[in-house]
């Protein structure tokens, strides 16, 4: 075997059943997170997404405590949290932030309680690690069907309400005037978000699921002008980051002599972070080029809207003001 190949894929990578489970789980989670994440970023609900991950952490830790499957706890309580947040906060924008903050705080408190009870009862040693930082390598293969079904349900919901959701994101007034049930469409999206966050909490942990939700989507939105391509790019980034994270975590066992496998969540998030930084480069480059090009012939001054300073990537030069 080629030495480079063995350097990249340490022995047994493709044969390992844990890697198989991680690949399937990571793939599903990455795609569902990326699709819902694009809408989350556009709707400015990253904070809500993060709060839902804390709610699902409370659910996951409660499930551990009473001996249920963590995936049921993560997703179940996440859905309940989404419904509560929708009920108490959706009517006003400021109310939304407050409701989110209150739900988030309560959820972290409950997680602390449940994890304390679980660890002191001595049943599970790795509970804190599992809930907060995920269990992509240690999840049993029995949960895969449930994960796949939930993923399909979330993606199906988003696909169904996609256009009305987009229209009500752009302008709730226009959407309502066209007969879109804005409130219901928003609730369906929130439920899909709860499922998505619950699944990624299972895989990469409640603390890091926000990174998987927001990171690929935010990077994709900087790279394209179309929603459809943003969704495609976000999926690609998410899947690559997850795959690369799994590979690096597996390999890290062979790094040095201590044989300490490093956590996969760290690698996934690290890859996403680097991708996000890199996604800003095309825009920065286009800005630099525009400045050069604009210097000699005096262009008419743009109106002083601050948005113009924050131009998107890929040179929207067609938009002469």
């Amino acid at each position, binding site marked *: 075997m080629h030495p480079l190949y063995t350097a990249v894929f340490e022995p047994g990578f493709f044969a390992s059943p844990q890697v198989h489970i991680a690949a399937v789980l990571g793939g599903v989670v990455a795609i569902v997170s990326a699709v819902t994440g694009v809408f989350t970023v556009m709707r400015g609900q990253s904070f809500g997404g993060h709060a839902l991950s804390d709610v699902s952490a409370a659910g996951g830790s409660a499930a551990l405590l009473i001996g249920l499957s963590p995936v049921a706890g993560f997703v179940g309580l996440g859905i309940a949290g989404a419904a509560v947040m929708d009920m108490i906060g959706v009517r006003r924008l400021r109310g939304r932030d407050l409701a989110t903050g209150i739900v988030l705080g309560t959820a972290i408190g409950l997680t602390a309680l449940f994890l304390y009870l679980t660890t002191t009862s001595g049943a599970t040693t790795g509970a804190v690690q599992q809930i907060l930082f995920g269990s992509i390598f240690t999840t049993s293969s029995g949960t895969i069907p449930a994960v796949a079904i939930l993923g399909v349900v979330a993606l199906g919901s988003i*696909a169904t309400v*996609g*256009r009305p959701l987009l229209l009500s994101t*752009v302008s709730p007034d*226009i959407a309502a005037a066209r007969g879109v049930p804005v409130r219901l469409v928003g609730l369906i999206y929130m439920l899909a978000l709860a499922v998505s966050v619950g699944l990624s909490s299972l895989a990469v942990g409640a603390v890091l699921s926000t990174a998987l939700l927001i990171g690929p989507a935010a990077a994709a*939105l900087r790279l394209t*002008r179309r929603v459809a391509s943003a969704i495609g790019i976000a999926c690609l980034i998410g899947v690559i980051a997850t795959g690369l994270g799994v590979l690096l975590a597996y390999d890290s066992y062979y790094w040095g002599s201590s044989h300490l496998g490093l956590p996969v969540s760290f690698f996934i998030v690290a890859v996403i972070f680097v991708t996000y930084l890199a996604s800003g480069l095309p825009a920065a480059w286009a800005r630099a080029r525009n400045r050069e090009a604009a210097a000699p012939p005096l262009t008419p001054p743009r109106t002083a809207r601050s948005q113009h300073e924050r131009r998107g990537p890929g040179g*929207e030069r*067609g938009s002469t003001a």
Partner: protein
Amino acid sequence: MRQQSEAAAVLGVDQVSVALSGRQILDDVSFTIGAGEFTGLIGPNGAGKTTLLRVILGLQRSGRGTVTVLGRPRSLRNQAIGYVPQKVLLDPDMPIRARDLVALGADGHRYGIRLPSAERGEAVRQMLHAVDAERFADARVGNLSGGEQQRVLIAQALISRPRLLLLDEPLANLDLRSSQEIISLLARISREQQIAVLLSAHEINPLLPVMDRVVYLAAGRAASGPTAEVITSEVLSRLYGYRVDVLHVAGRVLVVAGDAADERAAADERAAAALPAAGAG
């Protein structure tokens, strides 16, 4: 209320009253708009313009009164009405091009995944052409100027081929030139495609050259009719409930609150203005 010309009316608002949390927002408002008419909905801030438009759209319940569109009771999701709301906050980070927003005007209320359609693409192209927005069709809407965004929003509203176009303060936050351009664009569309336009504004002067009729709202009450008949000291004073003077200066209209010091001059002015006017309301 009005005569049987209502059969031809695109919009009939009849004795509409709205009270929100105990406050009377609209009080017995009635008017009609005929096909292709350009109507200005004029009034100071807080007069109830947005509420009235929302009642017409079915987004706001009216306590009393009826709204008819093309002779039939107004129903939600009425394809006959196009709507450009006030303050659409288009984020520059949103990956939506001008042409995508117009396409959403055509099928944004539909469920399921959108399939590619040459027909829709052609309709979008036509609308962008109609509002002279082809130049920036592929730019992110959030990066466009206020006037450019208004054009795109108008195209978005027109693509469902409405008979009535409602615009809520489309000239707010536009510089003078952009607002002139938007007005003449709307006047042209209204004339060429026989689309009735109801446009709310707090400033009447930019609309004077194109307006067929005016609906003047003050303190929740409305007076409507041809501009010259409505914009008089007499009609507006009755509407406001206190003395108001209408001054004509260099072809423009100024509506000013009556002042004790101006009592005599204003009375003369009013007497002069009231002579030719028949008075509407």
